[in-house]
């Protein structure tokens, strides 16, 4: 059953792409996808945390006693989240602003903890790295696509640039909270349709 490193990486991009296939990490997915930039920013931040924590958890998987493993994983994850937080504040401040509270909340993103527990704590470092990277990139792609859809329809822009003519009245429902839910729901539906063999 053991998959190659490449397979571990690739599965995150389609087979197990969160949050479409693994319905996890909904909060950031909903909250920070008003624009495609935000989506990608969040995705990259999460990927960073995911990869780092996966590697570290995998490296330490034999040292950590099982009873406190969750607590230990959380510390590891929280540390990397703080690292990201600090780095973003220092270098990409506008992004940090628009992502707001959701940067520290990466720590409670089920994807990160889920991968640490379900995968990294049972697999070798390179596999965990590939897994983290794959899932992270998948997550980024998902956020970006959702962000793109919401931005295009909700604001009439793509990456900040207007895509429709001036006569377009943005469907601003899409960038409101309800729009986020509905849009994600419909995207899940499309994924289900596509995924059906």
């Amino acid at each position, binding site marked *: 059953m053991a998959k190659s490193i490449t397979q571990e990486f690739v599965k995150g991009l389609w087979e197990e792409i969160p949050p479409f296939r693994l319905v996890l990490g909904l909060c950031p997915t909903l909250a920070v996808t008003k624009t495609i930039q935000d989506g990608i920013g969040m995705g990259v931040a999460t990927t960073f945390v995911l990869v780092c924590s996966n590697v570290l958890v995998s490296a330490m998987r034999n040292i950590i006693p099982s009873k406190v493993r969750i607590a230990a994983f959380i510390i590891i994850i929280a540390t990397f989240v*703080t690292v990201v937080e600090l780095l973003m504040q220092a270098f990409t401040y506008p992004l940090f602003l628009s992502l707001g509270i959701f940067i520290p909340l990466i720590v409670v993103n089920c994807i990160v903890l889920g991968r640490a527990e379900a995968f990294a704590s049972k697999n070798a470092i390179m596999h965990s790295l590939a897994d983290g990277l794959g899932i992270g990139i998948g997550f980024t792609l998902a956020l970006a696509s959702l962000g793109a859809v919401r931005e295009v329809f909700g604001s009439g822009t793509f990456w900040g640039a207007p895509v429709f003519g001036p006569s377009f009245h943005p469907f601003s429902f899409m960038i409101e909270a309800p729009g986020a839910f509905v849009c994600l729901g419909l995207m899940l539906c499309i994924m289900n349709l596509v995924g059906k063999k």
Partner: protein
Amino acid sequence: MGDYIILAISCILVNNILLAQYLGNCPFLGTSKKMETAVGMAMAVVFVLVLAGVITWLTETFFLKPFNMEFLRTVAFILVIASLVQFVEMFLKKSIPALYAGLGIFLPLITTNCAVMGVCLINIKEEYTFMQALVASFAYAVGFGLALILFAGVRERILLARVPKPLQDTSIGLVTAGMLSLAFFAFKGMV
């Protein structure tokens, strides 16, 4: 007193944690399929959120702030919350099994619930006083519970409907959550 009520209403309805702030959505979708589960989860969230809100506020005020260690907030909070939840779970399981059966089993779900962490962070960000933090935590939790229970009611019916296959389950759940959030616009501007 009036301020606290307004704060509470604002947290429950206007700035509902789930529907307006997008926090705590995973368990929101997960535990809303059955009314019983939803009620249990709602109670557990109220319980934990108040505890967590208080304890993180204390941590912030007495440790992090005086020593200028705000940057450690994430780590400290999550560690405190996780330990607290796990402790409470073990405590309930042993000492009050009845309560454990009713709401204790939902506790693990809360450790990684961004609603809890989120509210703690909001409390700090908004610079609430202790009482405000207490009220806000409680109210946010009630808001969470309210949304969850209302959602569970709606969802129980949707599970019986002939939803097209690709839309079933989470997909239609999300769309419905969107409608819920839409309906909550009714309270916009009231506070």
